[in-house]
């Protein structure tokens, strides 16, 4: 049976100053292989992420952090989602996420945290589930 639901649309993004892009590039290829539409950008200001998410009409945002900014940047992005009236747009975070980053990330409502070594199948399934749930919201 053919799946007639539209493909999930995903925004994957990381800071313009973080050069470690192996993980996010790999995730992008995996999500595309799973028939999702992936927009991959780097941002200069956290707020830019929300602008692109709205322009591209995405169902989920994936943030990658390999060298700092984990909490502060995520908090700013979530605040901007609220300000722009899309507080339910799911955000997932991946990369070097240290134990002391977890509580503040969960406090702002990050849906999932993926560290190095997380199985790609789990990552793909999580994006798919959260994106479809967001798209079919009432």
């Amino acid at each position, binding site marked *: 049976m053919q799946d007639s639901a539209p493909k999930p649309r995903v925004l994957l993004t990381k800071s313009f100053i973080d050069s470690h892009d192996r993980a996010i590039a790999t995730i992008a290829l995996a999500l595309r292989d799973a028939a999702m539409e992936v927009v991959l950008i780097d941002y200069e200001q956290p707020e830019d992420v929300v602008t692109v998410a709205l322009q591209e009409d995405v169902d989920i945002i994936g943030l990658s952090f390999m060298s700092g900014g984990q909490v502060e940047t995520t908090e700013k992005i979530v605040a901007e989602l609220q300000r722009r009236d899309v507080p339910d747009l799911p955000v997932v975070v991946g990369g070097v996420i*240290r134990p002391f980053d977890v509580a503040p990330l969960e406090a702002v409502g990050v849906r999932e945290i993926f560290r190095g070594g997380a199985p790609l199948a789990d990552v793909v399934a999580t994006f798919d589930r959260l994106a479809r749930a967001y798209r079919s919201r009432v």
Partner: protein
Amino acid sequence: MTSADTKPQDSPYALWQQTVSARYRDQSFVARNRSGVEVDPVYGGLDRHGKEAEMPGQYPYTRGIYPIHYQFQPWMDLQIIGFGLPSQTRERMDLLLEQGGSKGYFDREAYNFIFDMPTSMGYDPDHPGVRGSIGDCGISVCKASDYEVLLAGKDLAKTTVSMVLNAGSPAMLGLYLAAAKRRGFAFDKLGGNLTNYIWDFFGHSGGTNFSPRGSYRLIADIASYCAEHVPLWNPLTISEHNICEAGATNVQAVAYSIAAIIAVNEECVKLGIDPDIVVPRFGFHVRYGENFFEEVAKTRALRRVYAKVNRERFGCKKNSSLQARIHAQTAGSLLTAQQPLNNLVRNAYGALAAVLSGANGMTINAYDEALGLPTEEAVTLSLRTSQIIAEETGAVHVSDPFGGSYYVESLTDDIERRVFEIIADIDDRGGLIACIESGWIKQQVSAAAYQWRQEIESGARTMVGVNKYTTDEPEQFAVFQPDPEAARMAIADVERHRLERDAARCAEALEDLRRAAVEVNEGRAIGSVMANLVGAAEADATLGEMQAILHEVFGRNK
């Protein structure tokens, strides 16, 4: 020990003996093992084609660039260091020195600084987009006076300073040289290294790097300035390591590294710079840890291809233009957050591969880097790993110990052949710059990274503790927590700096920099960008201010 068609006195072995006795006189490099058996510093014999084998220190340097290597001079341990403010990093430097680290060649102290991502990319801490990354994963440095804190009391004529950074490299060298000048050190006494990863084909850092064309022009400018004014400085490191870490195979990474050398040399030739003037100070940063024998072979192949390309393609005549100096680093991307102590073992094997390859410098990562910034305990264990290899294992007694191995020699030839095939492909595609601009290189690297990941997923490739031999027990490890106050203090410091400096003098120096940049971009006055970066840094311009001008003139990557 000679084949029929080689005269004994001209044989590689005889020539090697002559070189060693001329250079080291009566010094003996014979070691004695546990059983009292004498071990020669190198062994020779017949190669795969039945001829007497090349010896270390002989063109094309497959077996190493020195006739006698670790037996005379061990590798330089350059543990990566840097976090928070210059004053915080200085405390860690003092600890490392106390532990017997930071040893450079010829009794110099040596430091391998890593900068936070804003600094690495050329942004000041008060740039609005960089909050949250200041002092995290590296030192925050944006002005000449920061070096006066970082290196307070150090004799810079006896200190080797290595700087690991990306697009911020040119301006960073300006800050260091300006600080040295203020403290009265002559430039011809300053030794160190600038990675100068200012172009982008291995990683992301898209818009913050310079355009590929602008990058190569800037590299020629810096190299030509350093050759004339800072002759002991190494102004360019080609990072095979970073290309591998981004996901490329060993063969791809060696090929793209050599392609980068070709592009730099072509730029120099175009600008009328004799490669023999600048090439001797170029070096490589190579990654170790994925496949033990392949890495030994890739190092041998890299040295050979480099020598051949510089001699045959660019007509280099100086021996030092043909000798690839290699700084080894263990593979960060193989470090796992799961069962992190396993990383100690991975790092040790990586480091051993580097030593058996004849690497010249060494960075062993900390076992806890997949969890966060290294703790002091982890940094010390990395140093101990190097010390155990150097002083306990006996690995240092014989140069190129795998020379003559059927397996390693065959693999070396095979990697060389494949590397030349990729270089020919890049030539056909219009050269490396065209391949970066078209996105082809990036595509190749990402595809290799994805394939690697799929092998992990399917179990075809084992990562112990990740896809095999896994445990569910929660593990508690100390994770280094950077000082959250560092960002606030760095911002307050740069704001105060801007208020206190001579604004007119600084603006004038930045204007001079702009004029020089425009000239160099048009192909004239090569070397004047670097000269004016030093001038602007002396006039208290910040890293970000200088970078903005360079970005404007040389263009940003798309």
